[in-house]
């Protein structure tokens, strides 16, 4: 098959449109579950990540942005993080399109890249809008680091950074497990689904 053409409009197939609400809800439920299990991470980009993986960057971006719009209805503080989640969807989608989830070392590179992007995009918001603390569990550590004399940027990037990496590793692992379980006949219907189907070894039946 020759290179597939992508247009933003064709990215938003009916199936992709229906994946967005699921992604938003999974982001939400993931975050809830993480706090229920008292994990020190947000784990609230899992939906964005699999939306990007399956349907490409634009669908991922919409899923990400919409998540913070929807959670912002309950707590408007989340509005400030809209760009972070949009960026997460975009980057995952482009990585997926570039077939960066085909081998384990590509996965590793993708995870590191994603962690880097999310730290780089969230740190300025945490520092400039929230003065370093967002009320999450890690805020305490950040505050402690600042009290110990660390510069606010160093404190935020240092503490949020570690957990962001762990967060992304877990999120991608879930994305990977999900995609492995989805049957191939379902995967083919997604824009980027073909990238995850093991080349059908032509069984001479």
């Amino acid at each position, binding site marked *: 098959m020759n290179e597939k053409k992508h247009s933003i409009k064709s990215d938003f197939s009916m199936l992709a449109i229906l994946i967005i609400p699921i992604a938003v809800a999974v982001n939400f439920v993931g975050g809830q579950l993480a706090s229920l299990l008292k994990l020190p991470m947000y784990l609230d980009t899992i939906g964005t990540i699999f939306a990007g993986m399956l349907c490409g960057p634009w669908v991922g971006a919409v899923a990400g942005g919409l998540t913070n719009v929807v959670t912002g209805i309950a707590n408007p503080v989340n509005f400030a993080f809209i760009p972070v989640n949009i960026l997460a969807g975009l980057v995952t989608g482009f990585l997926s399109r570039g077939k960066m989830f085909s081998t384990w070392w590509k996965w590793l590179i993708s995870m590191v890249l994603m962690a880097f992007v999310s730290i780089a995009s969230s740190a300025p918001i945490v520092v400039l809008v929230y003065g370093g603390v967002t009320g999450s569990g890690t805020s305490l550590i950040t505050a402690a680091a600042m009290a110990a004399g660390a510069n606010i940027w160093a404190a935020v990037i240092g503490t949020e950074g570690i957990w962001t990496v762990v967060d992304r590793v877990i999120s991608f692992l879930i994305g990977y497990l999900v995609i492995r379980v989805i049957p*191939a*006949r379902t995967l*083919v*219907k997604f824009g980027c689904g073909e990238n995850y*189907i093991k080349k*059908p070894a032509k069984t001479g*039946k």
Partner: protein
Amino acid sequence: MGVVIEFKNVTYSYPLTDEPVIRDMSFTLEGGKFYGVIGENGSGKTTLCSLIRGFAPSFYKGELQGQVLVDGKPTVDYGPGELSLKIGYVFQNPFNQISGVKDTLFEEVAFGLENFGVPPEEIEERVVEVMKMTNILQLAEKNPFELSGGQMQRVALASVIVLKPDILVIDEPTSQLDPEGTESVFKIIEEMKKEKKTVILVEHKIDLVAEYADEVLVLKDGRLIRKDATAKVLTDMSLEKEGVQLPQMAILGNRLVESGVPLRYIPVTEAQACEVIGEAIRKGGK
């Protein structure tokens, strides 16, 4: 009424598979008739429905050879949404048949009519009528996500009937229902038949097919092995060897004939059995 659906040498396979699920199928369906589709699991019944509705190949992709014509026009030539006005499709799993955006059942049933731009006054009239007919009006203010399987199935049927399509394709509408609920669903389908709609029904409960269908299509391994009037197909004992489950009454009738009881014809429904066996007994009694 003339032919509304025609299959011309249709062979279809899903993507990523080597084996076709439908093989070289040709037949015609006439308007205003009630067709029962039977066959073992995996014989291609659901795929047949998707082909009629055009979801195969438009949504499922895969490879289609031959032609599926609806009102003389190939399904692949219809524009998006065009077929939804002609063909109402109720599929198996009732839980996935809600829109996911409505808070009440009333609005859920109205969803399709809103999409077609029907004026609100008319929507209300039609929705109330259909909800009465399907016996769900008392649930009108409930949340669609909080219903039982049986209620869901009736909602699925109602939200398609309300669109008043000429053709109804119904894939096992009673899997979640008890015998009473099943009977009531069949009453609704019969009502559709009275309104001169073409009904194509996939159903395992053979006794109900025997009672309601005009014609029966028998599928096996993706092939159409029989298509004829209900009484003819369901009394054909050779089909038992093909794994087709025949109605108890037909089996009983055949046994009686074999053992020398003279029946005027082989019954397929209870009512017919009562009639012919009664006749035979009265004759024998004399």
